[in-house]
């Protein structure tokens, strides 16, 4: 950190990001857990459906999307729960810097730790399962554009349920219905791609959702935190 930048909102945001990332790094064994969960979930489907190669290949993008959704939901309590338990959430809320910016940073940290590795794994698994290159590109682009929405809405859900007993289940109940548009457009893109159709419309819609979530959810998350801490 440079001395000149001290005291600015950006410096506070960088401090938040650095702290969350170093927490993740120091407990890196825990980063693996959602990855393993993701892999198991994806493998459960062939076991349930049967080893029909063609059916599986058509279903795979949808399965990957649902598994990403669930795996990301599992890590959402991390965004605020630990900070609430040790009292550092009070410090965050009392920082003179805009709380919306700080919670946006925490959502970014969640995406970097909880989503980015998942996307890499998802790409690798799809390639191994023989998804064609065009479909894979559409699927991955959809995930890259759509997953920030999941982190942003997830951070909001995490703020709403912070400190509540049975928080994870409640959080899933609140956030999963709001994930539906992303799921629909994301899987629709992959399906179109597998049929050789254009996917621009879905990509625009997913980008639109990302921009909307980026501009609106930080304020809602900040308001939710203030309401919960009261």
């Amino acid at each position, binding site marked *: 950190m440079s001395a000149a930048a001290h005291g600015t909102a950006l410096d506070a945001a960088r401090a938040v990001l650095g*702290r969350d990332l170093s927490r993740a790094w120091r407990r890196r064994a825990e980063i693996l857990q959602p990855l393993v969960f993701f892999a198991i979930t994806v493998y459960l489907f062939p076991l349930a459906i049967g080893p029909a190669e063609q059916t599986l290949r058509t279903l795979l993008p949808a399965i990957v999307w649902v598994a990403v959704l669930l795996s990301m939901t599992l890590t959402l309590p991390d965004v605020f729960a630990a900070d609430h338990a040790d009292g550092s959430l009070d410090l965050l809320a009392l920082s003179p810097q805009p709380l919306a910016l700080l919670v946006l940073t925490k959502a970014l940290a969640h995406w970097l730790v909880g989503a980015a590795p998942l996307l890499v794994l998802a790409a690798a698994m799809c390639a191994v399962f023989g998804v064609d290159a065009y479909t894979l590109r559409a699927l991955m682009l959809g995930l890259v554009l759509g997953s920030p929405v999941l982190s942003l809405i997830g951070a909001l859900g995490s703020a709403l349920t912070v400190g509540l007993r049975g928080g994870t289940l409640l959080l899933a109940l609140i956030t999963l219905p709001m994930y539906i548009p992303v799921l629909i457009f994301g899987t629709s893109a992959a399906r179109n791609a597998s049929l050789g159709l254009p996917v621009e419309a879905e990509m625009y819609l997913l980008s639109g959702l990302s921009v909307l979530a980026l501009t609106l959810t930080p304020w809602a998350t900040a308001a939710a935190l203030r309401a919960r801490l009261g």
Partner: protein
Amino acid sequence: MTAHGPLALVARDLLCIRGDEPVFEGLSFTARGGEIWQIAGANGAGKTSLLRILAGLAPAAGGELFWRERAIAVGAEHLRRDLSYLGHQPGITGFLSARENLVYALRLAGAAPRLDADAALAAVGLGDFLAAPARRLSAGQRQRLALARFVATATPLWIMDEPLTALDAEGRALVERLLDAHARGGGLALVSTHHALAVDPARLRRYEFPARIAA
């Protein structure tokens, strides 16, 4: 942006309700810079609730609250700029070292530091534990680590919830020294504790919560 107006925290007719029970009502006071307010009272009297309301973390169910002649709502920006807060949970993160904890808190607080992190940690007696993960520190050492925030920054309003918890005699003396110096410098401190505070008696104000009457 700096807030104007004299350093004073004014409460008028505050009402606090937890669940469906009123914790306190009709609470009014004026606390000015240069004073140390000791908030005393039995367990459950509402000390923590009051301090969270004063810090702008929780809303009062009724009444008015002013800092520097401007009304405080939850998250009021002019209050956040002037405030250092030590909560019931000290806000220490176990996986960070003592120094990282302090630097993080200072960058978040954004105020111009009065002392650098290492000097502040030495001042609270943690000079030998800079790089130790905070989870290995004892409860008293964590409390000292939280106090280092108050050493390192120069905010005019201090709110401390039970700062003497887990501290040994020397640690308590440290808190008292800090409070005295802060008040001498014109700052205002509100401290909840039921221990006697050995600070300048001319500056000490005691607010005793009435015993809570069971309905």
